[in-house]
């Protein structure tokens, strides 16, 4: 009797062990969901690269794609073209793209913009405060903010055509794709 209970308990522990860790194996321990999704986006006001000020309030009522980048980050270079295309293609669909440069130097950031022929506005977050406000882990990260000013979606790592459209769908329903 005692033995049966013991064996049953052992079996249960073994199954729980396999289920829990089996589930754990399918998860990426580095993928951390942002608690900001579904909540109003943090406000920011940053010096614009090339002069002026970049404020999120200026885009009230529009969908905003906020991309955090740095000139030393190679994947940021890869995604720059995608972002530029979106910025041009979605202008009349009430979606704007803004870049936020972080952990970088003025000159290198400026050079990056010229080299990659970026036309959308970019702010410079020298002290990293805006990045921390957005809960950024590393570059690149892209946030999709809807017309009501809420964070609707977040992409960690470089955006590709597919992943950016997934985000755009959430901030410009019916328009994307």
């Amino acid at each position: 009797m005692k033995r049966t209970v013991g064996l049953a308990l052992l079996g249960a522990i073994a199954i729980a062990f396999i289920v829990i860790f089996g589930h754990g194996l399918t998860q990426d321990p580095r993928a951390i969901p942002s608690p900001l999704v579904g909540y109003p986006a943090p406000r920011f006001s940053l010096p614009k690269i090339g002069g002026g000020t970049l404020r999120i309030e200026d885009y009230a009522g529009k969908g905003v794609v906020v991309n955090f980048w740095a000139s030393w980050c190679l994947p940021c270079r890869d995604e720059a073209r995608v972002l530029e295309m979106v910025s041009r293609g979605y202008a009349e669909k009430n979606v704007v793209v803004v870049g936020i440069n972080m952990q970088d130097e003025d000159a290198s950031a400026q050079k990056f913009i010229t080299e990659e022929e970026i036309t959308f506005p970019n702010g410079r977050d020298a002290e990293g405060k805006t990045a921390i406000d957005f809960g950024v882990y590393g570059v690149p990260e892209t946030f999709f903010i809807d017309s009501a000013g809420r964070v609707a979606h977040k992409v960690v790592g470089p955006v590709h055509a597919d992943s950016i459209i997934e985000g755009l769908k959430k901030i410009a329903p019916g328009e994307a794709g």
Partner: protein
Amino acid sequence: MKRLIRAAAAFALLGAASGVRSEESSAADPAVEKRVRALATELRCPVCQNLSVADSPSTMAVQMRSLIREEIEKGATEDQVRSFFVQKYGEWILLAPLKSGFNWLLWLGGPVLLLAGLVGIVFWVARRRRPIEDVPPVSAETAARIEKALKERLEDGA
């Protein structure tokens, strides 16, 4: 050559903090520094593997430390700073999970096991306890044997 270019690009990461206000702390208030450090040890550096904001040399951690310092100088309490980071990064950023709900299992698991073990030992000892009184008095012959055995024991070790 391409490798070197990559290397140079990545190295920019280091000089990056030059744009950051340096963490000059020679003039800083040691009491504030102590609080900043204590808070920073509780927070996980987002760009590192299992290092705290206090220990990490990364730019991100440097910026986080200066943010904590600023908040503390503005009069923020420890709880306010902590909840600010939790709001931005989720509970993940805390290196010691909050004592609430499911997390109690984490905090109480060890103490419960220790207590249960102590109770178990008490019962085990009680069950196996044999009163020492029923040992008959030792004869002279036995005493000599014990003396001899003792000598051998000393040789044995342990």
